C-alpha cells in the first residue's frame, strides 16, 4: 500500500458526533487546522442522532453548579471522578447556551426563557431540549464545522488504528471508503470522539456503528481504560417486531401521572410494582422476569398503556418523531402491546481522561462517550449530550495546545506497520461468515454481561470473545475497491471482540453490585473495597486488569 494518500493538520478529530464536532470547532476557533474524520456520513450516522435532545445545565435561578455536581455523584453511586463532575457542572451552562451560537435552537417557555424540565435525580429543573433532538444538535454543529475554513471534513473514512511518532500519538491511518484507498491522517494531536460499544449487546438502542473502535484503538496504543463493565441499560428497548428492533418506548411514560401503564409478562401479569421504581431498579425487574421464562415469544415483555384512562388523557405525549417512527412500522403505541427488553443504551466507562480529555498516552485525547469516568455507575438523563459539549470543547482546545508544542509526526515504520496490517486482511475470498460470528458474540454479551451478571456468564463471554477475535483476525476479505464494507465489518468485529474481553475482565474484577453493574453472585454494594475504578491496560501478555481510586 505504498503511495497512500496523506492528509496533514494540527489536530485530528476522529468521530463527528456531538463531541467530535464540538472538539473540531474549539480547536479550529483557537487557530488550529483540523481534520474531522467520520466513518459514516456526517449528521447521518452516529449515536448523537438517537438522543432525545435533552441537555442538562445550571440555568434555573435556584440551581447551582454545586447542586448539579452533587446530583451527578449521587446518581453515579460515587464513581464519578470529582474533578470531571465539577467541570461538567460548572461549564454546562456556557456550553449549552453556546450551541445556539452554532445554530442549534433550545426550547423556550412562553416568557422567552429556557423551558426547563426536572427529571428524576435532579434537585432543580435543569433539562432543556434542543429543537430537532440529537439530529438538530448534530446538524447545526456539522453546518458550523463546514462553514469553518480551518476544518476539513472527511466523511465515510474508516480509521483503522492510531499511529505514533516518537512515543506520542501523531495521527491515524485508515481507509477512505469513497475512494477505496488507504490514507494517513497525520496530526500533532488526536482527539477520539468515537462513541461507545453498545452494539456488542444483542439488545441495544444504538446505531450499528457503535462497535467500540476508538476505545480499542486507544487501548492498543497503550491508553488506560476505566470501568468498562459500566454500561447503562435502558429498561424498554423494542425487540419485536423485527423492523423496530433497537427503537425504544419510554419507561418514564409508564408513571401514573403520564400514561400510567405497565410492562406485562406473557400471562398478562404486571411485572413492575407501583409506584414505579427507579430506572436501574426497573431493568432488574424486567431482566429477572425474562430469565424466569415469563417473556413473550420473542424474548421480551409487553409494554402497554392501552387500558389506562390516563393514557387517553395524555395521548399527546406520543405525538413525537420517535412515536411517529413506531407508527410507520404498523404499531400503534397508544393501544398495542409492544415487546421490550432491557438493552444497552450508553457506555459509562471508557478511556480514562483528565478534565482536558488527556489520556495516559501523549498526544491522545478522548471525549465522551468514548471517554469514561465523569458519570460513574449510572448517569442522569440529559448528561450525555451535555458532556459531549463540555468535554468536546475542552479536548479540542487542549489538543490544539498540545499540537502547537509537540511537532510530532508519524514514524514511517509505524505507518508502514498499520498499512501492512490492513493489506494483510485483503486478498481472501471472504469465506468467513462475519455476520454469524458477530451474532454469536452479541448473544454472549447479552447473556453474560447484560443486566444481572455472574462469574460463570462473564467467563463464557471472555471465552467467546477470544474465539471470535481469533476467527476475525484470521479472516481475509476481497480487495473490493470502493466502499469495502466487508473489510469494515471484519475490523469492527475485531474491535467488538476485543472490547468484549475488556468488558468481561472489568466486570469479573468488580466483585460487587453498583448502579448498572449487577453481580448476581455479589449482590451487595461494597464501598470498603470498590469505591474505585476498574482499569484495563494492554500488556504483551494481553489485558492487565486492576483498579485505582476515584479522583476527588
Amino acid at each position, binding site marked *: 500500500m505504498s503511495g497512500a494518500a496523506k492528509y496533514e493538520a494540527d489536530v485530528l478529530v476522529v468521530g463527528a458526533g456531538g463531541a467530535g464536532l464540538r472538539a473540531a470547532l474549539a480547536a479550529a476557533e483557537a487557530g488550529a487546522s483540523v481534520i474531522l474524520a467520520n466513518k459514516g456520513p456526517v449528521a447521518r450516522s452516529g449515536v448523537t*442522532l438517537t438522543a432525545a435532545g435533552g441537555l442538562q445545565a445550571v440555568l434555573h435561578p435556584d440551581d447551582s453548579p454545586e447542586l448539579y455536581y452533587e446530583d451527578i455523584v449521587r446518581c453515579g453511586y460515587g464513581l464519578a471522578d470529582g474533578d470531571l463532575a465539577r467541570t461538567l457542572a460548572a461549564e454546562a451552562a456556557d456550553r449549552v447556551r453556546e450551541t445556539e451560537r452554532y445554530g442549534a435552537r433550545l426550547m423556550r417557555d412562553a416568557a422567552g426563557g429556557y423551558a426547563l424540565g426536572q427529571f428524576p435525580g435532579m434537585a432543580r429543573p435543569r433539562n432543556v431540549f434542543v429543537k430537532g433532538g440529537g*439530529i438538530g444538535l448534530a446538524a447545526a454543529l456539522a453546518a458550523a464545522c463546514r462553514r469553518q475554513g480551518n476544518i476539513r471534513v472527511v466523511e465515510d473514512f474508516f480509521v483503522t488504528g492510531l499511529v505514533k511518532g516518537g512515543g506520542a500519538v501523531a495521527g491515524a491511518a485508515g481507509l477512505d471508503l469513497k475512494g*477505496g484507498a488507504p490514507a494517513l491522517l497525520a496530526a500533532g494531536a488526536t482527539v477520539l470522539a468515537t462513541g461507545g460499544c453498545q452494539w456488542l449487546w444483542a439488545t441495544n438502542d444504538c446505531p450499528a456503528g457503535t462497535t467500540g473502535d476508538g476505545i480499542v484503538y486507544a487501548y492498543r496504543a497503550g491508553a488506560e481504560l476505566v470501568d468498562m463493565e459500566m454500561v447503562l441499560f435502558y429498561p424498554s428497548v423494542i425487540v419485536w417486531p423485527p*423492523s423496530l428492533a433497537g427503537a425504544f418506548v419510554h419507561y418514564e411514560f409508564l408513571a401514573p401521572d403520564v400514561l400510567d401503564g405497565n410492562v406485562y409478562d406473557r400471562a398478562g401479569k404486571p411485572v413492575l410494582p407501583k409506584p414505579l421504581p427507579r430506572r436501574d431498579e426497573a431493568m432488574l425487574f424486567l431482566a429477572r422476569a425474562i430469565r424466569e421464562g415469563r417473556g413473550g415469544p420473542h424474548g421480551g415483555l409487553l409494554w402497554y398503556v392501552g387500558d389506562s384512562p390516563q393514557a387517553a388523557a395524555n395521548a399527546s405525549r406520543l405525538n413525537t418523531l420517535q412515536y411517529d417512527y413506531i407508527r410507520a412500522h404498523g404499531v400503534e403505541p397508544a393501544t398495542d402491546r409492544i415487546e421490550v427488553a432491557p438493552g444497552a443504551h450508553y457506555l459509562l466507562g471508557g478511556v480514562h481522561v483528565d478534565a482536558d480529555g488527556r489520556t495516559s498516552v501523549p498526544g491522545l485525547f478522548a471525549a465522551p462517550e468514548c471517554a469514561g469516568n465523569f458519570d460513574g455507575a449510572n448517569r442522569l438523563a440529559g448528561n450525555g449530550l451535555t458532556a459531549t459539549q463540555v468535554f468536546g470543547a475542552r479536548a479540542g482546545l487542549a489538543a490544539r495546545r498540545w499540537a502547537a508544542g509537540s511537532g510530532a509526526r508519524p514514524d514511517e515504520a509505524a505507518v508502514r506497520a498499520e498499512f501492512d496490517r490492513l493489506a494483510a486482511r485483503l486478498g481472501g475470498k471472504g469465506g468467513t461468515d462475519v455476520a454469524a460470528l458477530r451474532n454469536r458474540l452479541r448473544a454472549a454479551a447479552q447473556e453474560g454481561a447484560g443486566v444481572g451478571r455472574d462469574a460463570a456468564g462473564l467467563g463464557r463471554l471472555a471465552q467467546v470473545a477470544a474465539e471470535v477475535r481469533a476467527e476475525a483476525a484470521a479472516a481475509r476479505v476481497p480487495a473490493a475497491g*470502493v466502499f469495502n464494507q466487508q473489510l469494515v465489518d471484519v475490523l469492527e468485529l475485531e474491535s467488538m471482540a476485543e472490547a468484549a474481553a475488556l468488558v468481561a475482565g472489568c466486570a469479573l474484577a468488580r466483585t460487587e453490585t453498583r448502579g448498572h453493574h449487577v453481580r448476581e453472585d455479589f449482590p451487595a454494594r461494597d464501598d470498603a473495597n470498590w469505591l474505585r475504578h476498574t482499569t484495563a491496560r494492554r500488556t504483551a501478555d494481553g489485558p492487565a486488569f486492576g483498579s485505582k481510586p476515584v479522583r476527588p
Partner: protein
Amino acid sequence: MDEEQVITVRVYRYDPASDKAGRLEEHKVASAAPLSVMALLARVHELDATFCCRTATCFKGRCGSCLVRADGRDVFGCTTLVRPGETVTVEPHSRFAVIRDVVVDFERPLAAGTEAAE
C-alpha cells in the same frame, strides 16, 4: 420456503471498478413479519457480504442515512415497510451520486430530479 413467509428483494448492484452499468439482483429474505427497506438491505448484506448498503439509523425517520429508491420512488428506507409475500426493487436514491450498489455519496448531490424524498 412458504411464499407468505418470504420477501423478495431486487437490489441494484454496481461496482464502478468493473461495471459499465448497474443491474438488479434478486434475493429472498425469510420473514414472517413486515420489514423496513433498511432492515431488508441489512439482511441482504448478511446473506451476501459483497452487497453494500448503509446500516446506521436515528430511529426517528429523520436523519436520511437510509435514503434509497424503492419501486421507483425516492424514500426513507427506515420507514418504508414491505410485507411477507411482497417484492420490492431497491436502487440508489436519485438525487445523489452512487458510490457502490445502493450506497450514495451525500456530499455529491445531483442536479434536481423529478421528485424529492417523501
